[in-house]
């Protein structure tokens, strides 16, 4: 192999392995002594840096690795992270409202209200800085308590949590009453429609 061919092979090996490759390993692939290989790779390193290339070779403890140049990260982020639409889903809004009105609240309590697992949504809300951890509940497992962030309050122009529209026991009782009435009404209807047919 001439120098050009050796360099091409080094490039192929570094590309394929993707991780740091010891000089010994390169020497095996190229059937040349380690010193020659090392000199060759270092030459290539200089050239990769000089030229307008998106990748370069770095040396780590006598091993060589091919990797992306750091100034390419910005473009890579655009490829790797598909831009998403950033409005909250209905489910996220529901969860957020629960946290806003019941804070501080644990995941488990949120799940009790929503009836479904909400790990993912809670994490997302934390990531978006709408809610944050607010200590731990003094209970077995010491679960994390979540609360809304200051940013959240600021957005809604709320001075403090006390300014949140209140939903208290009274409101809940009203809901219950309504539900009871509905059920009663349903039962009456059924009785009128089909007398003494289905015995329960």
């Amino acid at each position, binding site marked *: 192999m001439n120098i050009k061919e050796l360099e091409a092979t080094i490039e*192929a090996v570094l*590309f*394929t392995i*993707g*991780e740091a490759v010891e000089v010994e390993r390169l020497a095996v692939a190229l059937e040349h002594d380690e010193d020659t290989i090392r000199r060759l790779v270092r030459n290539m390193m200089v050239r990769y840096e000089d030229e307008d290339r998106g990748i370069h070779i770095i040396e780590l403890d006598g091993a060589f690795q091919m*990797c*992306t140049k*750091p100034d390419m*990260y910005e473009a*890579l*982020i655009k490829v*790797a*992270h598909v831009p998403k639409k*950033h*409005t*909250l889903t209905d489910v996220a*809004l*529901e969860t*957020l*409202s*629960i946290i*806003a*009105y019941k804070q501080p609240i644990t995941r488990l309590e949120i799940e009790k*209200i*929503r*009836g479904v697992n909400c790990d993912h949504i809670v994490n997302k809300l934390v*990531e*978006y*800085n*709408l809610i944050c951890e607010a200590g731990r509940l003094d209970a077995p497992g010491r679960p994390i308590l979540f609360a809304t962030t200051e*940013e*959240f309050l600021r*957005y*809604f*122009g*709320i001075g403090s949590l006390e300014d*949140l*529209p209140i*939903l208290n026991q009274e*409101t*809940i009782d009203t*809901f*219950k009453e309504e*539900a*009871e009435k509905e*059920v*009663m009404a349903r039962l009456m209807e059924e009785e009128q429609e089909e007398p*003494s*047919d*289905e*015995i*329960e």
Partner: protein
Amino acid sequence: MGIPVKLEVFEGPLDLLLHLIEKNKVDIYDIPIVLITEQYLDYVQQMEKANMDIMSEFLVMAATLVKIKSKMLLPVEEEDEEYEDPRQELVERILEYKMYKYASFELKDRQVDAGRVFYKKETLPDEVKNFTEDVPISDLLNDITLAKLQGIFNSVMKKQVDKIDPIRSKFGEIEKEEISLEDHIVFLENYAKREKTFSFRKILENGYGRAYVIVTFLGILEMMKMGKLTIVQKEIFDDIMITYREESEEKS
């Protein structure tokens, strides 16, 4: 005429047919159908002994060949313009098959070259992998006002209340069963007439479910009211003995 080669494995009837055509070096557009059919049948016969599993498909083709052969034996009037060579359809099938077989050889060649290539796994730098976008809160909460948020919360809480409906939750599980009291009384009466005297426990064995127990109980109470049954229970929690009152029959 036998096949002078040892029994080869063919992938299907067309594969075998194509082999025979190529072996005999005959024009695919002018297949000597008598010869080919003969050889084909000969092969299938040998194969029959060797492998019964894949026979059916080969036999279908054999039938097709014989049919074509018989058609070919019919005299054709020279003037007949409508006449279509009975081999036509078969020729087209063989040709199409031959084309794909040819293409598969081409693919096979390419596969070798393409197989000498190495690819690389994704190696996202941590900076790229762990990137999270800063989304302005106003984007997230697009046109959510505080009033809307409260509305959402109210509906969530209402949904939850509905789920643990205060009245229905006391009912427990309600099994909906199609047992009507009237129908059941008819059944009970027939049962009582037949048995004369029977135990409450025993009659419960005729059905299952809470509804059945309740309807049976109600039915018996109803029949007692009508004077059709008398019951005796010696001690509390003891089985109840039910007796049919014969004289009630005349009354009703």
